[in-house]
């Protein structure tokens, strides 16, 4: 096989790949998929609270996270904020009561609300195509 036998071929291929990768990365950073009109302060603090207590270890968002608890992507529209706040105040057999402050609870709720507004994670809402791709 002639191809890939010399350093020159290898350097050409790696340069092409690196250029494509850097271009792809910079494009994504510059043109993030969602354009945000105004920052949502509460939701942003809620994200920090979410990370501070590591809710993601038991819960998923868009199917990603730990699996001991349910996916929370659309819990806001399915259950409503009163229901969420009841869980956050009391915990469950498995979920600890984190002794959250009122502020933390409203921020977390705003965070879950903003996630809910971003889309649907329920697999039933997808249509499957014959070429193996999916649509929502």
């Amino acid at each position, binding site marked *: 096989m002639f191809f890939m036998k010399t350093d020159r071929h290898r350097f050409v291929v790696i340069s092409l790949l690196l250029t494509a990768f850097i271009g792809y990365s910079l494009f994504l950073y510059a043109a993030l998929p969602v354009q945000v009109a105004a920052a949502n302060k509460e939701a942003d603090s809620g994200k920090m609270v979410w990370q501070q207590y590591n809710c993601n270890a038991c819960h998923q968002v868009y199917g990603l996270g730990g699996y001991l608890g349910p996916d929370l992507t659309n819990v806001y529209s399915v259950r409503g904020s009163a229901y969420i706040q009841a869980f956050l105040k009391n915990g469950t057999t498995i979920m600890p009561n984190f002794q959250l402050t009122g502020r933390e609870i409203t921020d977390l709720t705003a965070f879950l609300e903003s996630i809910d507004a971003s889309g649907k994670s329920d697999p039933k809402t997808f249509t*499957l195509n014959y070429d193996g791709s999916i649509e929502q």
Partner: protein
Amino acid sequence: MAALNNNKPTTSRLFMIAGLGLLAAGLLFGLTGAWQYLVPGSLKEYLSFERIRPLHVSSVVFWIIFGATGAVLTYLQQYTGKKLYCPLLVKIQLSIFAGSVITILISYTAGIFGGREYWEFHPALAIPIAAGWILFIINFIRSISSFRKQPVYVWMWITGLFFFLFTFIESYLWIFPYFRNSVVNDMTIQWKSYGSMVGAWNMLIYGSSFFLMEKISGNNKYSHAPIAFILYFTGLFNLMFNWGHHIYTLPTYPFIKHISYAVSMTELFIIGRIIWQWRSTVSTARKHFHHTAYRFIVAADIWIFLTLALAIAMSIPAVNVYTHGTHITVAHTMGATIGINSFLLLAIAFDILHDTCTPLSEKNIKWLKRGYATVNISLLIFWISLIAAGVLKARWQMQETPLPFSSMMLMLKPYFIVFFISGSAMATGFFLILYPLLKNQAACYFKYLVNKPGTGQDRLPVQLIVE
């Protein structure tokens, strides 16, 4: 062989030994987590699941990172036949890493977080890790004199070193509000970085296994052959562009998903080659199976096949819709990190730790073989139990009016019981392997302390003096 009797606890070896210690800790945390699946609410007061999961995952991820670092540092010196550019830098790197990991594990136990999945620790702790990694890169680049005519494993090491640093930093872009102000943006960049990061440490590990296989077979033609480079570039192409398969259900750009779907399918080429080479793999395996190190490579080969088959299936969006968010993902992750990464690293650990000290006794080897068999059989059961639990959860997700979450979890309980039992067996098997290896190291270290350096050290062939 007197010349092989090198008892000095070198820094490269200490990386591997520390990694093995992290593996042992990770196994215990993993078992605790599995126990919490069985007995809901157990240990809730002190070590609830949000602490156990990161303790488990970070311990095993750092096992992989420490092990890979020890492997690359050791083999780099064997490859160049020289000491590292700056042995002091490695010592500093080890101190930084060890200090950070201990701080991280303690902070998890105390319930202090702040990061995201896989790097749940406070983001400030990422700074020393990145700094330590930069020292690693400097040391590596300065130790390799030229980039010309290098074998494929050197390419893989360099790739792994740079991409780990890049993706690690990228995974912290969320600290800027611009990148985290929408969950979709945040998760797109998060999984872009994570997807490639796994590829980066795989490059370090595969490169080192490549080096080891050539060392065992005594034939170094393959690492310069075109096919080795074609496979390397296929791997790199996937590292760069296949990460979208983690976020098929996220409402991000559709082209991210299409690119990832198409790129993932090039892995069929890799799996095709594995099948094509089956017979020659089996015959080489027969020839070298007496090598403890080689045994782990053979086991990893089988797991590469199983994991890749599952991964390719899961990379088809229409299949992923079902498997996503279920324990099939966990089966995939643990199958890969145990069956491939940990087995290859154990092969390397045996090569760099066991040959350099007093040989293991017959009795030790007998137990080691039992441990090896136990790990392999139980891992298969472990993996199947997770897939089975995942299939049931996938069906639950697709029901029009699903049962409550807690009833579904109750339904999966029999599989979690099998998961826990096979996990315990697997951990036992790992301990049977780790015990003689670590005991031997402790004995070596003791001998070194008693005899003090100078004597045996001077008689070593150049390529064995590793720092």
